[in-house]
């Protein structure tokens, strides 16, 4: 893999490749060390952190769907304090060279500010603000679908950190460009899209929802066409860089996102199926660049030709 072709500056964060592990699907990164070389991972995006520890939702949390999956983990995580004390040092020791982006959410605008401030420490290279988790009743979904609330969260976060701020958008909206523009205007350094689409599976034997939380977030290849469309729309609406994700399984998928206008991409559910996916996708992009005589991955970004 030719890292000079792939090295990418994303919102001021220098990454070895433009391919990251998506929040909630990549643990804290170090869990993947058996399967891939962490030095070749663009960035580890952490499981979503919250102010307090969370046990997550009861009952079944995973359901397979055609070419995808639903999850209602419910943001299980040890809380920001345990993260800072126990987990971050371990990650920095085991993956000293990999960019680490902390994903988090809160239940109020103030929460977001507090989290941003706590995460403004060495070892964290950037933060990803999850305003779109559909599983948490106390707030997430409101911030993710209301442009004013999203802007307020963004401003609060920006006021409490010196790190690059990536705001992650929900696809469960009528017009994602409205959200994107609101967040851009509020000062976000970059956007990530898409988070999961809200879905449901009913067990026809028990007549109950299969998932403990009734609904869950849909991800995986099934959602890719929706994600590519949204990245394409948002790229035309904003001037800040985009981290594109949603259903990426192969380098070909990732290249669609790049052409649509994403500067970087993340692999989500596919990590569960092929735990070397993040590196395999990067290698595939590199092979594509080679084949097409391109000297840098940025030459693909937003290059889709219309009409």
């Amino acid at each position, binding site marked *: 893999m030719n890292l000079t072709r792939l090295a990418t500056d994303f919102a001021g964060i220098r990454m070895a490749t433009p391919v990251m592990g998506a929040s909630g699907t990549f643990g804290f990164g170090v*869990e993947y060390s*058996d399967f891939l070389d962490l030095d070749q991972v663009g960035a580890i995006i952490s499981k979503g952190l919250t102010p307090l520890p969370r046990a997550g939702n009861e009952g079944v949390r*995973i359901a*397979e769907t055609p070419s995808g*999956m639903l999850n209602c*983990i419910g943001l299980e995580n040890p809380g920001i304090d345990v993260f800072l004390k126990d987990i971050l040092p371990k990650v920095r020791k085991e993956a000293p060279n990999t960019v680490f982006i902390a994903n988090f959410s809160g239940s109020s605008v103030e929460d977001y500010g507090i989290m941003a401030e706590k995460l403004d420490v060495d070892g964290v290279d950037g933060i990803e603000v999850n305003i779109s988790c559909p599983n948490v009743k106390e707030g997430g979904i409101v911030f993710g679908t209301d442009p004013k609330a999203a802007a307020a969260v963004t401003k609060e976060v920006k006021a409490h950190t010196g790190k690059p701020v990536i705001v992650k958008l929900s696809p469960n909206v009528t017009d994602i460009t409205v959200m994107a523009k609101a967040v851009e205007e509020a000062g976000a350094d970059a956007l990530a899209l898409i988070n999961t689409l809200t879905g449901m599976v009913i067990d026809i034997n028990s007549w109950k929802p299969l998932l403990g939380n009734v609904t869950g977030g849909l991800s*995986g290849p099934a959602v890719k066409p929706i994600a590519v469309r949204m990245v394409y729309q948002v790229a035309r609406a904003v001037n800040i860089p985009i981290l594109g994700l949603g259903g990426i399984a192969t380098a070909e998928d990732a290249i669609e996102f790049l052409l649509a206008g994403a500067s970087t991409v993340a692999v989500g559910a596919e990590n*569960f199926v092929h*735990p070397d996916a993040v590196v395999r996708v990067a290698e595939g992009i590199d092979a594509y660049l080679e084949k097409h005589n391109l000297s840098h991955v940025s030459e693909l970004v937003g290059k889709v030709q219309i009409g």
Partner: protein
Amino acid sequence: MNETKKMVEIGNIVSNWELSADVNALVLECPDIVAVAKPGQFVMIKNEMGSTYLRRPFGVADVDKEQDLLLLIYRKAGKGTQELAQLDDGAPISVEGPLGKGFSFKNEGRTLLIGGGVGIAPIIYTARHLSKELDGPKPVILLGVRNHKELFWSDFVENFAEKLVYTTDDGSYGRKGFAFDAIPDILKEYPDIKHIKVCGPTVMMKGIAELAIKQGIECEVSLEKRMACGFGVCLGCTFEGKSGKRWKVCGDGPVFAAEEVFG
């Protein structure tokens, strides 16, 4: 227990045959995983040519380290396993493993191994390990099955069993009723039993775990939860143990001390 490196390996099908109307056996050639897999661990497999998305977890039923063979025994439960059952010899299967921590083994006393349904699969390797690899006292094996059509398990375990006891739901073979009901007699007959290891439906494990705890016999149970990843990153499989600690079935288990789950 030292964690072995996890890996993904293509295992070609060596054979894939029917044991009963709804249970199949699958033998895969996958040297690297076979070399390190321990009793009670599991693998996540994927038929890359099939229509399902996530990997599917299956307990390591047995390994043949000389011939690099991995045995899985699977119930044709849904789409993934039904497609698997159609595959012929030579077809490539992606195998991820070995996953989880297996059963623990101590150097004293006899073990009672109890399996219910396809939960019997990991009992095979465990029995062989106890009686052959560790060369200790042969385990007593108690199997709870639906009826006499499910006695195919004998072929896999009888050589490693001090005694093999069946219960059937309908009394068509062995003792009628639940595996649980047969335990008192077994414990009476084998007072040297110091360990119980169970893999089967939750209700079965719960009853046995409670009995073992009451009687002060060390007991391990092997849990099942829907898994997306199998190696600790999706958090689909977590639960809160009786100690208050949160566990991942895939990474910390699937084998747990009975007290932590049912205590």
